[in-house]
């Protein structure tokens, strides 16, 4: 079961891990944004990403429009769904325990996943949207080929992370978001339209999920099930980021991507990356909740 250590594979596995990690980071940032501002852990985050990706598929593959239009369509679809979830099902539940709202997102997960399966076929093969060409360039010293699509994905992830940080730091909306994240009641006293800010966070977070979905589908299997499950990887990265720190979330996502990929160089067992994810989830939950520590006592 344990292969001879194939050192030669490390560089290419690193590339894969980084790209995967970048996607996780993107999804995780969106998740954390929604969580901090609206207090809801969106279990349907992956389902939203999945649905939006299928919209891109519809636009770019089935209707033949250029890939970037498909991406934009996905972002619009993603933020649209996020908006509907927030205004339609979260806002009526203000004041209810957070667990109730989370269960609602579970309902959305089921609904979105089934709907996508009904519209586009649950088990059929879908050609992923290829935004950037697969061809790549050779990195000199380490002898690995990096695809332009891989590079783009990673760069986009970093850019989005920086953009989010900039949004939160330098814009009015971002400051409003941070205020609401801190204390919605106080924010309201300062004249901040909490409803609009919350809706904005859902839209932004879901749009990011959409981008993550579109970018990851060339790398993994593109079906209604797997993409929905990306939410657990996003969770893990978000937990590593302690559900609050943007840089740590990014690092967490990248770290998770690498941690899932590297073992494949040594162990041939199928579910190894699952095992790694599971251990990391346990570890982050355990570390986050030391007895006596009152961090993140939100739910």
């Amino acid at each position: 079961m344990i292969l001879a250590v194939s050192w030669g594979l490390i560089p290419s596995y690193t590339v894969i891990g980084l790209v995967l990690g970048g996607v996780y980071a993107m999804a995780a940032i969106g998740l954390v944004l929604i969580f901090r501002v609206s207090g809801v852990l969106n279990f349907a985050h992956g389902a939203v990403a999945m649905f939006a990706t299928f919209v891109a598929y519809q636009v770019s593959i089935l209707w033949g429009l250029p890939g970037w239009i498909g991406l934009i369509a996905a972002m619009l679809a993603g933020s649209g769904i996020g908006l509907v979830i927030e205004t339609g099902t979260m806002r009526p539940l203000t004041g209810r325990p957070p667990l109730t709202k989370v269960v609602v997102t579970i309902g959305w997960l089921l609904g979105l996943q089934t709907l996508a399966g009904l519209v586009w076929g649950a088990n059929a093969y879908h050609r992923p949207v290829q935004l950037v060409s697969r061809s790549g360039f050779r990195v000199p010293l380490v002898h690995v080929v990096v695809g332009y699509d891989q590079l783009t994905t990673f760069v986009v992830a970093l850019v989005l992370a920086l953009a989010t940080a900039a949004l939160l730091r330098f814009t009015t909306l971002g400051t409003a978001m941070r205020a609401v994240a801190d204390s919605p009641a106080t924010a309201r006293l300062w004249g901040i339209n909490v409803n609009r800010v919350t809706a904005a966070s859902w839209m932004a977070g879901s749009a990011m999920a959409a981008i993550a979905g579109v970018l990851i589908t060339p790398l993994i299997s593109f079906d209604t099930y797997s993409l929905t499950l990306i939410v657990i990887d996003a969770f893990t990265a978000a937990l590593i980021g302690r559900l609050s720190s943007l840089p740590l979330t990014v690092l967490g996502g990248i770290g998770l991507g690498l941690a899932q990929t590297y073992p494949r160089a040594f162990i041939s067992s199928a579910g190894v990356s699952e095992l790694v994810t599971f251990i990391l989830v346990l570890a982050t939950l355990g570390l986050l909740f030391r007895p006596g520590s009152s961090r993140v006592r939100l739910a």
Partner: protein
Amino acid sequence: MTGDRLRRAVVALLVVVAVAAPAATSDYVRALSADAMWSGLLVLSMVVLTGFVGQISFCQYSFAAIGAFTVGSLVSGHHWSFWLAMPLGVAFAGLVGVLVGIPALRLSGLFLAILTVAVALFFDNYLLAPGTWNSFSGGLSPWQPGRPAFLGLGLSGEYAFYLFSLAVFLVCTLLVWDLRTGKVGRVLRAIRGSELAASTMGLNLTAWKLTAFGLSAAIAGLAGALSAVRIGSVSAPSYDFVHSISLAAVAIVMGAGSVGSAAAGGVFLVFGRYVLQQLSISSQYFNLIVGAGLVLQLVLTPQGLIPSMTQRLSTRFARRTDGLAAPVPAEGVNA
């Protein structure tokens, strides 16, 4: 109290119907009815967890899988008797439930939910995946355990097996109901009410919460064991994460605090799909309906459909005392 007696009468009537009705239907419907029984047990396992300690789990089917695969591997692979394999599967499931409960002690409901998602995916993609533990999961080929005989009577006939499943379901429901209205129910409701107060009143929170987790998982394991011999084939996709989510959604819609919701939930899970099929609608719509129903229901009736209905009936029949509004009979309504 007339409300109580009415409720007993209704339950008795339902039991009679449950026993007699399938006699008039086809074997296929009887098989579905048996499925409704172990599905009902799964909902019951959620009632124990949600109704007692207020936690939501998205990995109940994984516990069921433990029961199912234990029976499958031992009965089909090693020719054990079902009556030995089944208790072992239940115990194994209960043990895993306690293990999952340990980190849960420190986690709030929200993060526990994440943990159960991780557990479910862990089972789906690692533990039960071919190659990891083939002697348990069967690798690429499903286990095919045969039906056992109960006290000399073969259970291969669908009606016979259904009656057996019904009996198991009723016994479990009765046990859980007894627990709920007695000391155990009080203790667990106290823990739900205020953990701090409960612990200063002498309750060992750890022991009780772990017991609840273990019991919930054990019931799920029992459901899995039944499903293994009902279907006659045990394969991992039947116990996957989506099933757990669907189960959780139905349980919550039905009102996971109420024992009565177990039967309703089980019937709904199985016959809901059946009805769709009869109407020539793809059974895929079932999950969609459940998802939408869950969202709508949470906005409208937080307690779930069943408790709201019984509550309305109870208050109608309860007597008014001293001019005060009839107190909500805390045990009666939630049963």
